[in-house]
């Protein structure tokens, strides 16, 4: 439960109140992590929150994309290079990207949900030939809140990923589609029975996308969601992150829809 001190190596403001912090340990080396895992990040005297890893920098440092929504995330978003925060982890289950080998892949992101999925895209891109068609569908509030626009363009151009973006609220320059991200499922090509899906975003969005994919014939066990609950300890002892039988810090955050569907269907579970 005691974090290690990590120094902010760099801070990159993204769009939409988000900041990507690159963190490296004050002493020692960065731990290994798997796509989908999270760290508990502590802001001195303010608190500690779980943040998914969104990548590894060339230096090996850990990247986290954080949106300022609460007391801790506000402080973390304001952190400057050289500042020291506490970090422990990585914790939780991972996206099983290797299991998608030989299959078509649908990656569906809603808003900040693209941050943890960035590690999936990087993994897919690194071994592009192992996978069939890869589609990335992204829903975002407005064109200006789209995360990682340059990387989206690169995945589209250099890694043969069908990247499609939809917005809730268009601006005058927007010529793309408007509406929920589920609408993009009609626009991508995949063979449902031979498809793996990685979904991250607000819970309603994940349920809508997963339901839609399963209705089309994607096996529920191959639709992976990243679930979010209040977390204090990250190691299965504080009780906060329960979802029915699951302790999401240990049994999640990545849970397949076969397990998650009936739990998410119960109101206020």
């Amino acid at each position: 439960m005691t974090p290690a001190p990590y120094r902010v190596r760099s801070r990159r403001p993204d769009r939409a109140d988000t900041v990507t912090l690159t963190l490296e340990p004050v002493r020692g080396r960065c731990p290994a992590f798997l796509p989908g895992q999270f760290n508990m990040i502590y802001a001195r005297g303010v608190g500690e929150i779980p943040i998914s890893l969104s990548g590894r920098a060339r230096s090996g440092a850990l990247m986290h994309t954080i949106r300022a929504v609460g007391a801790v995330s506000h402080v973390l978003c304001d952190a400057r290079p050289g500042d020291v925060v506490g970090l422990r982890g990585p914790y939780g289950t991972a996206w099983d990207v290797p299991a998608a080998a030989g299959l078509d892949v649908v990656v569906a992101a809603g808003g900040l949900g693209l941050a943890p999925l960035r590690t999936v895209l990087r993994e897919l891109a690194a071994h592009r030939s192992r996978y069939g068609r890869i589609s990335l569908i992204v829903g975002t509030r407005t064109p200006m809140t789209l995360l990682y626009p340059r990387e989206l363009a690169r995945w589209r151009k250099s890694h043969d990923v069908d990247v499609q973006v939809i917005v809730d609220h268009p601006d005058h320059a927007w010529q793309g589609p408007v509406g929920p991200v589920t609408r993009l499922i009609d626009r991508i090509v995949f063979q449902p029975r031979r498809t793996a899906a990685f979904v991250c975003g607000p819970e309603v969005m994940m349920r809508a996308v997963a339901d839609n994919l399963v209705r089309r014939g994607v096996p529920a066990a191959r639709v992976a969601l990243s679930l979010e609950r209040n977390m204090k300890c990250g190691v299965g002892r504080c009780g906060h992150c329960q979802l029915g039988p699951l302790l999401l810090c240990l049994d999640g955050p990545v849970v397949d829809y076969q397990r998650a569907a009936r739990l998410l269907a119960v109101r206020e579970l």
Partner: protein
Amino acid sequence: MDALVTPSLEPLIEALRSVGYTVVGPTVKDGAVRMAEIWSAEELPAGVGDAQEPGGYRLTERDDDMVFGFAAGPDSAKRYTQPPRQTLFRMRDQEIEEVEPEAPRVALLGVRACDLAAIAVQDRVFLGRHPDSAYRRRREALFLVAVNCAVPGGTCFCASMGTGPKATAGFDLAITELAAPHRFLIEPGSERGAQILTAIPHRAAEEDDLAAAQEVSRTAATRMGRQVDTTGIQDWLPAAHDHPRWTDVASRCLSCTNCTMACPTCFCSTVEDITDLSGDVAERSERWDSCFTLDFTELGGTPVRGSALARYRQWLTHKFATWYDQFGVSGCVGCGRCITWCPTGIDVTEELSCIR
């Protein structure tokens, strides 16, 4: 070493103190039997009994001098395995220092079978997939003197949960209090327990002492104030998430958290952060929390379980069913504290029989 018989617990208390244990046992305080440090056997509640019912606890006078003639009081061993509050670490400038956890050498005198089972449940929680070294140290520093229940309370149901009334494992010593003549049968349950016994004047237990002790536990098992049928509960309770009884119980539940505070297995905790006046040193501590509080599930400013219905359903379902999925055992040991200490007298055994 075999079981022995002694007329007084004074030598046992002295022996435990002489090897450095703080002896914590039942005492009468605030109109209840509370666990507190004791120095002498004279502080034990001789002749004190209790009457427990849903939402009710009263001390009574017994017509004998039994010192363990009452059922589980509001305190359990949880206070000693998982302190209500503990400091985790301090951060000064760029340094984070772990705070050495306190692990006092405490001998708990009078732990009931249900509470031994509760400690075994907590062992699974804290020594499972991410073992908690502070918990392990506290556990190892704890010397457990069990007492086999003679008079279960009106809200007890350990027999239904298979945890009592006789202590069968997990203790250093186990006492059975016997009457006519008043004496204590003590059995060792560990090496260090046997070691302590060598320092106590005694005679060897005879056939009729052992028979009398067996009779105490046999009789106690037939006097449970409550019972519950847990057959298949792991399946039927989570499946009953939309049962109308949840609305009914939610209308009586105050979300006061008493049940979770009194429960010997409820382990939920939260953290608090403070900074000194200079702003240079920050400290993080952990304290007991409850799934009945609104901010327990807060996410982005809104609680996931915003209704009392959802919070009560979570607690009862977790305790009796999903606990198995997470830790391989039931979260309930049948001590009845949640029933006794509920200000509105909600009775889990009644709720379960209605939902079944």
